[in-house]
């Protein structure tokens, strides 16, 4: 074979003729021809280069895709496989044309194992070539998952039988590896298009593959740590073999081992097999008793119930094992499902009177049992009621927001400012420290202590990098806490200014950017001044006396800045120390003094309608606003909740009121540009896409009035209840329940109700923890929460299971919590039971738990009549009857 001859076949011959010519060539001849073949391949990439691909890309695709209406030409590729090095072949893509085997079989290159390993990793369709090479003894069998698992890839539907019949050698080794290796993305028995289960069953029926070994292998596969999805095939396959009772009995240790599987479906499968053997009388008692524990200690209701039934039958036929059965049944009293606990208790009762040992065992396990089961068990044991009964009544008064333990220490020097600013920049908060840094820059921007450059060296370096990378938006405001810190530092250290003020109706981030704009401007000019609005206590509170002192010692400053700063300060005035502050403000001059005295409660009227006076009016006594949220099925997805919000009398969100005030008074707007209609639009637009750090900082704008904040939070969470979009910011709203100064108004309860239905685990946990907290400190209004829940159920969209779980977990905290939950559910059910039976029984079960724990049945006549109307033999009606049986 000469290079010219090979090239002639590539150009004018066929694949067969190329292969035929290569077949007789020596390795030296192949090597001599390889340069010419590569040159020929390189000519082939030209059309792809014209389409804009790079040479490397073109080489990779040239044998995969020829273009529209063009046929792929594999002759050059076959020639390359027959002449090139392994490295050269790899450059030209991963295709394995039909004749690949013939070329490799003739050539028998030294790198053939490497080629096999490589092709299996990049092209599943290469498996047939590799298999044939292995079968013909031309290469070692690769020990890789790809080799074994790609056997099941591709092919037409049901191809497995044909493959195994045509290549029976696979039955000796390869097939068994399928039971030891978990599927990979390209090939998994999870979707058995090839019909492997049917094929192996058929071949075993013909005696061509060992049935015993298949039965063993399918069970052993279930013992391996495969992902749950990959285990389905093995269970189904095992059952498809229809094992006889004797075959199962012979494999009892395997089934027993699987009865402790962490995969629920495998556990169920094993218990079913054990149940079959038990019915057939083929299950030794010891084996059952040994294997019962894991199912009773697990969380699967079905598995635990199955085992309890098996144990009961065992105890009935073997009285000697009753003590051991009682021990196991007692363990099931700790199962999370109340049904299982009840079944376990009933089994204990049927086993006979409790011995002293048995009593101790049961008593130990009752701590975690549900209240109804605990009551019954205690009555049976004669041990008296251990359930603590305590009534819940709301009783809360706002703690002192100016308590010394929440006082904020201002930053004292440049060293501390550098450390704090760097930390807040890198961590995105916390909000109190954002304010400390803003105030720190404002007050200390003119100071240049010794070695100032050294001290700020690292901060400069970090800020320089961020400024170089950062896209500076052309719209107003601040975009994240990190961005804010960067811009403050840029102004302070580099005299650069990027924060802009808005010139139209503002979004949240623009409103938050107003004060930083003024501070950065002064920092650039080294004009220091303390901020009026810097909080003195955590959570954004400002001591009125401190504000008076700040105004008294005031420094001349731009009027617009003073107004913006004073407006924010007014919104932060704490309710305490106002009389003392009013006294101290007696001598304050100018409009600022008048405004402040009015805000503090001076006996005078407001003297204006500007933003400053409006803020003072709100600080003096927050106005009443009616927030209304309504919900129903989403018009595009009836299974999802859609919420809408309206606010009366003024359609303005409290926290965004600040934005409008700034817009109106500090931006020199023409009134025509500032349209009230903006404020009626979707609140989501107004809050924008603020990240969690910015939202958390925004919560400090008006700490004294949370209703608008809660309304916005409820609106946003309700519109994402099923977590259709990953909106991580929404959980910031749920942190309001940790704010011990927050009075729980109507919207706060609506926010709580929505949170308790949330699908996202953290939102749900925060809402549940919030409920527990506000019961603990007496802030919960049961009728408000119950009413909000009733409204949500009326939408017909929300599910009761999540809510029931939260309420049950809350009820278990203490007797007081149980009583609060009882009252909440009583109110929630006041307007009717949820429509869906599953929701009904979930809520009734939680109600029963709460009522039993609090020692009080449903009190309301309407509710009792409602429960009496629930008829039938299902779980819901049974629960209704149990509730009616409770003492009121």
């Amino acid at each position, binding site marked *: 074979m000469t290079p010219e001859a090979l090239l002639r076949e590539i150009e004018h011959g066929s694949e067969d003729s190329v292969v035929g010519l290569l077949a007789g060539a020596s390795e030296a001849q192949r090597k001599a021809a390889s340069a010419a073949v590569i040159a020929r391949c390189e000519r082939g990439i030209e059309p792809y280069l014209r389409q804009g691909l790079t040479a490397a890309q073109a080489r990779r695709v040239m044998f995969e895709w020829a273009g529209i209406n063009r046929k792929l030409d594999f002759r050059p590729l076959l020639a390359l496989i027959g002449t090139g090095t392994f490295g050269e072949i790899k450059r030209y893509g991963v295709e394995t044309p039909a004749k690949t085997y013939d070329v490799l079989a003739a050539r028998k290159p030294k790198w053939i194992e490497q080629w096999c390993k490589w092709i299996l990793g990049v092209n599943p369709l290469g498996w047939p070539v590799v298999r044939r090479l292995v079968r013909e003894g031309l290469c070692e069998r690769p020990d890789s*998952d790809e080799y074994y698992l790609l056997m099941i890839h591709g092919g037409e539907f049901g191809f497995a039988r044909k493959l195994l019949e045509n290549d029976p050698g696979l039955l000796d080794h390869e097939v068994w590896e399928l039971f*030891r290796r978990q599927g*990979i993305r390209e090939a998994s028995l999870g979707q058995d298009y090839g019909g492997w289960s049917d094929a192996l069953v058929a071949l075993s029926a013909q005696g061509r593959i060992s049935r015993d070994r298949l039965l063993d292998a399918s069970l*052993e596969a279930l*013992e*391996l*740590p495969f992902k749950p999805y990959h285990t389905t095939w093995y269970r189904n396959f095992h059952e498809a073999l229809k094992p006889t009772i004797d075959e199962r009995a012979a494999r009892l*240790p*395997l089934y*027993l*081992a*699987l009865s*402790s599987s*962490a995969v629920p479906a495998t556990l169920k499968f094993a218990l079913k097999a054990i149940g079959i053997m038990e019915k057939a009388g083929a299950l030794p008692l*010891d*084996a059952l008793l*040994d294997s019962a*524990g*894991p199912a009773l*200690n*697990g*969380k699967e209701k079905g598995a635990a119930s199955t085992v309890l039934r098996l144990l009961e039958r065992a105890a009935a036929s073997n009285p000697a094992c009753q003590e051991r059965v009682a021990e196991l049944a007692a363990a099931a009293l*700790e*199962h*999370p499902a109340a049904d299982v606990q009840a079944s376990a208790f009933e089994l204990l009762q049927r086993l006979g009177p409790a011995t002293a040992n048995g009593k101790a065992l049961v008593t*130990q*396990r009752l*701590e*975690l049992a549900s209240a109804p089961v605990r009551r019954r068990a205690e009555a049976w044991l004669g041990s008296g009621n251990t359930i603590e009964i305590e009534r819940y009544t709301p009783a809360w008064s706002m703690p002192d927001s100016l308590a010394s333990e929440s006082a904020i220490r201002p930053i004292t020097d440049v*060293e501390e400012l*550098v*450390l704090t600013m*760097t*930390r807040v*920049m*890198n*961590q995105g908060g916390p909000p109190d420290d954002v304010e400390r840094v803003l105030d720190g820059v404002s007050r200390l921007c003119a100071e240049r202590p010794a*070695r100032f*450059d*050294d*001290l700020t*060296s*690292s*901060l*400069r*370096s*970090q800020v320089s990098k961020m400024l170089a990378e950062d896209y500076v938006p052309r719209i107003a405001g601040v975009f994240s806490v990190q961005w804010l810190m960067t811009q403050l530092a840029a102004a302070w250290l580099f005299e650069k200014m990027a924060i802009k003020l808005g010139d139209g109706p503002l979004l949240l981030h623009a409103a938050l950017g107003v004060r930083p704009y003024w501070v950065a401007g002064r920092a650039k000019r080294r004009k220091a001044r303390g901020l009026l609005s810097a909080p003195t206590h955590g959570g954004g509170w400002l001591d009125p006396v401190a504000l008076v002192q700040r105004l008294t010692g005031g420094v001349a400053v731009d009027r617009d800045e003073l107004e913006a700063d004073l407006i924010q300060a007014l919104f932060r005035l704490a309710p305490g120390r106002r009389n003392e502050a009013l006294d101290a403000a007696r001598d304050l001059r100018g409009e600022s003094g008048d405004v402040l005295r009015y805000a503090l409660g001076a006996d005078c009227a407001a003297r204006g309608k500007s933003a400053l006076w409006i803020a003072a009016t709100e600080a003096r006594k927050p106005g009443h606003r009616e927030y209304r949220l309504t919900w129903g099925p989403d018009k595009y997805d009836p299974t999802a909740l859609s919420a809408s919000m309206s606010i009366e009398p003024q359609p303005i969100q409290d926290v965004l009121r600040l934005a409008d005030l700034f817009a109106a008074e500090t931006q020199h707007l023409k009134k025509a540009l500032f349209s009230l209609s903006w404020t009626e639009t979707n609140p989501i637009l107004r809050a924008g896409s603020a990240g969690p750090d910015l939202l958390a900082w925004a919560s400090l704008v008006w700490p004294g009035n949370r209703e608008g904040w809660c309304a916005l939070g409820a609106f946003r969470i309700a519109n994402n209840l099923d977590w259709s979009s990953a909106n991580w910011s929404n959980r910031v709203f749920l*942190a309001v329940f*940790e704010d011990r100064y927050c009075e729980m108004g109507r919207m706060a309860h609506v926010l709580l109700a929505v949170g308790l239905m949330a699908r996202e*685990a*953290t939102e749900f*946990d*925060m809402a549940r*923890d919030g409920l527990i907290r506000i019961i603990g400190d007496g802030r919960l209004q049961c009728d408000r929460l119950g009413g909000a829940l009733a409204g949500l159920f009326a939408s017909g969209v929300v599910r009761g299971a999540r809510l029931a779980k939260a309420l049950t*977990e809350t009820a*278990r*905290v*203490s007797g007081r919590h149980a009583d609060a939950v009882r009252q909440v559910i009583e109110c929630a059910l006041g307007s009717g039971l949820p429509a869906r039976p599953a929701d009904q029984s979930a809520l009734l079960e939680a109600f029963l738990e709460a009522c039993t724990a609090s020692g009080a049945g449903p009190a309301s006549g309407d509710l009792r009549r409602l429960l009496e109307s629930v008829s039938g033999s299902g779980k819901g009606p049974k629960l209704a009857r149990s509730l009616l049986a409770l003492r009121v």
Partner: protein
Amino acid sequence: MAATALSYTYRYAGASEVEAAPGSSQLRLATQVLDGGPRLFLRGRLVSPKRSGELLLALMEVVDARFHIPGAMLSRILRLADPVVTCGTERLRFEAFSQCCGAYARVDLLEEAVDGELVNPGTTNVDFNSPMRAGLARLSDSSPALLTVGADRVELESSRAQVVERKVKLPERWLRGFVEVQAFQARMQPVFTATGGALRRLLQELRSPKGTSFVSPAGPAIRVHSSAQPGAVAVGGIERLKVLGRAARHADRVEVFADEATGASAWSVYTPDSRFHYVLSPEPSRGFSGEGQALEALALGGGGAMGAVRSALRWQSRIDPAGISEASMHSREEVNRALAACAASGLVGFDLADRAFFHRELPFDLSLIDKHQSRLVNARKLTEDEAVELDAVDQAWVTSGGNRYRVWLGPAPRCTCPWVAKHGSSRGPCKHILAVMAIQSKGEG
């Protein structure tokens, strides 16, 4: 600095197996064949085979676990490393470290769990394979199970035995983490204890919220909170606790520990005759190796008591610092510092239940760790380049990368670098702080 890996060859005298015979089982644990020839460590009988089997299965779950897969990780992950077994006085210990380097587990079989004879104390690797896993699942309390750890020459010459060899690349990150986790444990404080039932209920109801959860006792139960509470332990990636499922089935009680500075937690599950210790890094994406807790010990070395401590190591299950101090005339502080240095070098482990170190020597060449601890290397370079300028008491300036950093030592060291700004002290000291500590320590020396 490119990631480094230690090429390591596991060479076992056969494969570990559970051989089932009518009425009994034999659990043979194959250990490393050492240069000095085969070694038999222990021979005996498992008193509670089912329980011991389940604890070892739980350990295997940790070996296989990857709770976090970095975005760049595309290829399928193979199991890297086998557990380490220590046969010492009073305890048979099996240690494992997850592939993601964020979870450490140790099974301690107490004297009550194994009725047998300690033939040779020591630490070595032990082969854990899939067939053995299946065999462990089939152990039952109704039939006795014999146990051998290692093999003597006679057993090796039997027809069954053939050497099993497996080459792996152990990432430096994995090795460092295995060592670092001892420093974490030594700092941890017990926070609360709960019953076995409470632990089982917690695991049964465990959800998988993102981020960090907080757990605290609530009456008879353990409650999970979404935010920090007084007396609550932070657990990042709480779904990692599911590994405790098998151990929890046998638990009488669980003791929960926390390292407040870093957010790491530890769960010690007590059964009648054994313990399962499970230590979690602050978050799934954070392995123990980057946490820098052992850095201080490595940077400052073991001090003058190192020799005395090393010579006192005799495979004891509980090292007595007071006894060493008395015997060697070194102060308790010096002995503790030397023990910390031994832990950082893999020579001792820490037992949370006993609140004491125990002797075991990790069977890896750990000189790699010191060489490639990047922060330590960088700190040393700073001192060599004379980049540290001591200023006042416990204060210094450090020049690095064109910037100047201000460092304050003391009980809560600080630095103006972005690393400390972001992480605080949760990941150990930065290189600047380490450099200043080293210079100051030299000065004191």
